């Protein structure tokens, strides 16, 4: 086990077992690497804010859930890397936690430290509303990331993905692809069913499919955003439906397992659409050698944008490109469909 | 068995003792088989053994006597290699040895039959017999060979009817004792330690046990025999060692000729064996209404319909052998088993069948046979054990008033002269008799009116028995109704006012205790003459 010093990375990463160090030397196998070795390019596509010259120093507190999943991990990365590009930004980032009480404690610590702006990605939006309100009352503007608080008073600005739109766009893409197929059958591999976002995605998907009377959704199973559950549920779906035309999988992480099940069953008669937009999925779309033909974005770049918004709030400025002086109170991101045609534009945003 | 042999039997040949009987015990000049000298064993807070000496000659039955807590159990665990002594020496056939582990003791040829039946319920009879020294080749078992060898051992013990493949948990206690014995004999033994082997055995079983013991000694095997029953020691013992408070009070007394008075005095400082309290004037049929009435109570396959009355102030005894249904009757009255016919009335009101709660609410209390597992929380204090049945009396809105709880419990335990008078002492550290008193105190505190006693003196030493008898009689005199079950006929006859004799689940006799003697009861129990 060798550990090469990697000064550019936080210490936690430095602890990584040999896998990390070796991957840098064997960087060819980019998709199996544990380590991002091109971390700088992930921040490029977002529009540069109007005021990128150093201004008044801003301390930003960032509290998110435990990064035990590719997408959440990408959120942290995006925030950290974005903050690094500004010399006037100090980022106070907490150790992520999925425990509501613990996250509340972490946020209260940040409030006591009197950070200038808070970015909160709550483990559970409803449960953390109170602490959001507390921060706002203490005069600290809160940027609520993705999982929305109960009350608009608990945040200054909300920025997040569009779960309904994600399902809608996935449905429309599949609908267009299968326009000429008679009695087309569609299968859905959902994420964790006890999360509201999963239901919103399914709702959007179903609503889109209503526009295509030739298409019928014949089966749906919910996995748990894990590779293992993706494999297990997909294997069952493949057994249940001996032939279908399209599959929408909510999450590219569980998609690793789903694609494994598909390969094991030797099936390739359908097209598959992913969700969230992992780098691995985008590489596969670009290579065009599997059933995966598209993925619907749920961009983790929102964390980088949140840093921009926080910085602008802290310096009392607006954002470029809008006529208003103030930053909007809510920003919903667009869930673009990434296909072979446009994948090159998005490749750098793909998370690992 | 004293013939010099390799001390370690090969694991594949755990023969019963089949050494040459021709080479019997060495002459009196040779070293003793076992010599323990100045053995000390301390547990946290307790000095269990404080210099014990024991000398066992080859081919003798050496009896070990002592009250509960005298250190007998600790001593035999040292002998079995289960405890390592803190000081003292052990010589085995003249050679100094350390008994570092159970394996080491077994290799020397020491086997132990424990009182608590250290067998595994989940395994079969044969599996228990050969546990730890299984018939196996590189770990793979030969179940057939173990079964055949077990069947042979059981047959030699006079119990060919016990199937080696039967799960041990299904066997009654007496049969477990036989299995335990077979287990001891499955080793190549020179010394067998028997810890109260007769406690769960009936009359005939005890005879059978004695026959086995004399067969063993004829083969030169020595037996260390522990029992509370002096008459047994007189019958089979050669010499006696008496323990008191972790020390050897007397060693090598002749078993047959030492007067009982002397033995009891050595053990207890008292010179009485069984003293039963005075009965109130014998009443043929007590006046007044019975507090407990049992009408045609029956459980199919266990006991036939039973009728009995118990009046306040009366002690009624149930006499019978193991398997006669006496414990089952008691437990059915108590609601722990659901009857298939009949009913139980308290003060003329029938109890809901099969409900312990109903029985307790009506004023019944049971002191079970298995005190340690069914009656007491062994790790808890005396107070907590006593107050268990009526906690809500000391609580307000769920909060316990521990001072009141302690005082109330103490009042009861003092009434029963529970010793030592320390309500915070863990029940585990009490002697058998005082543990029994803790159980009784619980029911007294509860205000119970009918006491069901199942083998109340099991594991209680001689000196404490008389005291316990007196306590039971006093409770009756104070107006309690007592229903007593015991396998010891003199106990039933001496303590009870009226006696029911049971045989194979049937009542064969019912009448005043004064009209019966031990001989007559044994006849009834075995012949079942019509009553």
């Amino acid at each position: 086990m060798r550990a090469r010093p990697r000064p550019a990375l936080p210490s936690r990463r430095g602890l990584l077992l040999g896998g990390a160090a070796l991957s840098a030397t064997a960087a060819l196998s980019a998709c199996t690497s544990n380590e991002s070795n091109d971390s700088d390019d992930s921040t490029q596509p977002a529009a540069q804010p109007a005021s990128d010259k150093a201004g008044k120093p801003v301390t930003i507190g960032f509290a998110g859930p435990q990064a035990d999943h590719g997408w959440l991990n990408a959120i942290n990365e995006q925030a950290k890397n974005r903050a690094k590009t500004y010399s006037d930004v100090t980022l106070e980032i907490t150790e992520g936690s999925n425990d509501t009480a613990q996250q509340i404690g972490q946020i209260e610590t940040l409030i006591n430290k009197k950070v200038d702006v808070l970015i909160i990605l709550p483990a559970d939006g409803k449960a953390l509303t109170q602490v959001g309100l507390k921060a706002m009352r203490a005069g600290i503007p809160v940027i609520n990331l993705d999982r929305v608080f109960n009350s608009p008073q608990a945040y200054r600005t909300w920025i997040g993905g569009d779960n309904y739109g994600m399902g809608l766009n996935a449905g429309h893409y599949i609908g267009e692809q299968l326009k000429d197929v008679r009695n087309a059958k569609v299968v859905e591999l959902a994420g964790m069913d006890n999360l509201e976002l999963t239901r919103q995605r399914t709702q959007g998907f179903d609503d889109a499919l209503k526009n295509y009377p030739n298409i019928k959704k014949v089966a749906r199973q919910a996995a748990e955003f894990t590779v293992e559950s993706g494999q297990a549920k997909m294997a069952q779906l493949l057994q249940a439906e001996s032939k279908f035309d399209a599959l929408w999988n909510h999450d590219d992480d569980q998609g690793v397992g789903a694609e494994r099940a598909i390969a094991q069953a030797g099936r390739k008669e359908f097209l598959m659409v992913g969700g969230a937009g992992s780098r691995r999925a985008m590489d596969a779309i670009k290579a065009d050698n599997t059933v995966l033909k598209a993925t619907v974005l749920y961009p983790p770049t929102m964390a980088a944008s949140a840093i921009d918004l926080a910085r602008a709030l802290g310096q009392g400025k607006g954002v470029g490109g809008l006529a208003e002086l103030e930053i909007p109170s809510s920003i919903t991101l667009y869930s673009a469909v990434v296909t072979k045609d446009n994948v090159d534009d998005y490749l750098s945003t793909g998370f690992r | 068995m004293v013939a010099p042999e390799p001390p370690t039997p090969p694991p594949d040949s755990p023969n019963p003792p089949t050494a040459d009987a021709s080479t019997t015990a060495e002459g009196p000049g040779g070293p003793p088989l076992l010599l323990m000298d100045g053995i000390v064993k301390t547990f946290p807070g307790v000095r269990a053994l404080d210099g014990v000496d024991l000398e066992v000659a080859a081919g003798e039955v050496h009896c070990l006597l002592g009250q509960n807590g005298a250190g007998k159990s600790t001593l035999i665990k040292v002998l079995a290699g289960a405890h390592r002594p803190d000081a003292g020496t052990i010589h085995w056939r003249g050679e100094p040895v350390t008994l570092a582990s159970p394996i080491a003791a077994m290799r020397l040829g020491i086997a132990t039959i424990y009182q608590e039946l250290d067998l595994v319920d989940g395994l079969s009879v044969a599996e228990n017999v050969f546990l730890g020294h299984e018939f196996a080749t590189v770990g793979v078992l030969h179940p057939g060979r173990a079964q055949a060898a077990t069947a042979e051992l059981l047959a030699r013990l006079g119990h060919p009817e016990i199937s080696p493949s039967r799960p041990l948990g299904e066997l009654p206690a007496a049969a477990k004792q036989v299995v335990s014995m077979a287990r001891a004999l499955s080793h190549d033994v020179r010394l067998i330690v028997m810890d109260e082997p007769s406690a769960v055995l009936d009359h005939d079983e005890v005879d059978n046990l004695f026959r086995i013991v004399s067969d063993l000694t004829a083969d030169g095997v020595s037996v260390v025999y522990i029992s509370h029953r002096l008459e047994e020691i007189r019958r089979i013992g050669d010499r006696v060692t008496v323990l008191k408070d972790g020390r050897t009070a007397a060693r090598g007394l002749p078993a047959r000729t030492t007067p009982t008075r002397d033995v009891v005095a050595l053990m207890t400082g008292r010179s009485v064996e069984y003293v039963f309290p005075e009965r109130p004037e014998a009443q043929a049929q007590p006046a007044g209404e019975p507090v407990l009435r049992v009408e045609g109570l029956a459980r199919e396959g266990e006991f036939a319909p039973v009728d009995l009355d118990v009046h306040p102030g009366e002690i009624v005894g149930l006499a019978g052998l193991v398997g006669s249904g006496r414990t089952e009757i008691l437990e059915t009255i108590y609601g722990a088993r659901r009857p298939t016919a009949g009913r139980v009335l308290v003060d003329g009101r029938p109890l809901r069948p099969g409900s312990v709660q109903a029985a307790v609410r009506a004023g019944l209390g049971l002191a079970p046979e298995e005190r340690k597992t069914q009656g007491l929380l062994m790790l808890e204090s005396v107070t907590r054990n006593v107050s268990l049945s009526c906690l809500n009396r000391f609580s307000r809105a769920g909060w316990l008033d521990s001072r009141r709880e302690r005082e109330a419990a103490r009042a009861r335990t003092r009434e029963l002269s529970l010793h030592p008078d320390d309500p915070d002492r863990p029940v585990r550290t009490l002697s058998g008799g005082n543990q029994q008193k803790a159980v009784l105190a619980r029911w007294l505190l509860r205000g119970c009116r009918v006491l069901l006693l199942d083998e109340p003196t099991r594991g209680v030493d001689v000196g404490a028995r008389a005291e316990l008898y007196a306590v039971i009689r006093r409770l009756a005199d104070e107006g309690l109704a007592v229903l007593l079950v015991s396998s010891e006929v003199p106990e039933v006859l001496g303590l009870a006012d009226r006696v029911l004799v049971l045989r194979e689940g049937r009542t064969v006799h019912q009448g005043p205790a004064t009209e019966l003697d031990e001989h007559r009861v044994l006849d009834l129990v075995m012949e079942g003459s019509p009553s």
Partner: protein
Amino acid sequence: MSTGNSREPVTGVMLRKQPPPTPAQPPPPGGSVSTVLRVLDVRNLTLLAVLAALVAVGGFTEPDQFLSTDNLTLVLTQSSVIGVVTVGMTFVITSGGIDLSVGAIVALSTVWATTVATQEYGAGGILFCAVAVGVGCGLVNGLLIAYGRMVPFIATLAMLASARGLALLISDGKTQVVDSKTVLELGYEESYILGVPPLVLIFAGVTVLGWLLLKRTTFGRRTVAVGGNAEAARLAGIDVRRHRLYLYLLSGLCCGIAAFMLIVMTGSGQNTNGNLYELDAIAAAIIGGTLLSGGRGTITGSVLGVLIFTTITNIFALNNLQSDAQQIAKGAIIVAAVLVQRRPSGTTET
């Protein structure tokens, strides 16, 4: 033992000098049918009945899909990973212990075995690493419990937390995809042996070995004894502590094997793997008739328990019913199986 009818004094059967009064009973004759019944045990028959009922439901609702060979293969494959874990768990529970760390150990093993460093060594490296990590965790559990005298519940709970944490640290929350063609191909139809997937063969092998180990070896016998009465086992000369150590090692080994199987199945390693395996394995063992307090356990029952759970999931998926319904059914099956298996008892709870 009937004492009433043995009043006739048994005259001196002198040990060794006379032949025994009754010849030693030969072991009961074992015809093939009775052997099968003995292997299965009565309790397991009720489990088989449950499984048969499930198969009937599946065959009735989705005859074409459910009763196909493909589906049988699928159910067995999906059972294989948790099945191997359950075999190890059965030993631990039978001995009166518990291993709450199995899921975490599986996660850690999959992650460690799929780091880039490990993958350099190819399929053999992955297999070795997965098994070694499993055994290593089992060793720590065993040492803490047997020689550190920790309660199994606490020791393995601590292992659960730390192994999950370490898995997250190593993987950094990322999914580690496997490169090795050898490993990946084990999951494809080309490597089926006589139509049976290698994963199912491993599962079958572990089951058979586990059955033999529990039923036919001193190790298994002593496991039951330690669970049934540890003190009796100690007095019988069994080194109870070392035996406990071996048991947790065995459970760790099963986790390592299961981790490798999971890598084959998902083609990746992830720190979220093995989620709630501990509960699934315990549930399967319990409905299979293993006593949670120790002293009784059967491998056959545990494996039937696993198959029942997987079959439920399969039937529900084939009928396009959602996870909520699946979870309710799982709970109901646990309760029903335990109730059905309980022997009719005359005594009421006191």
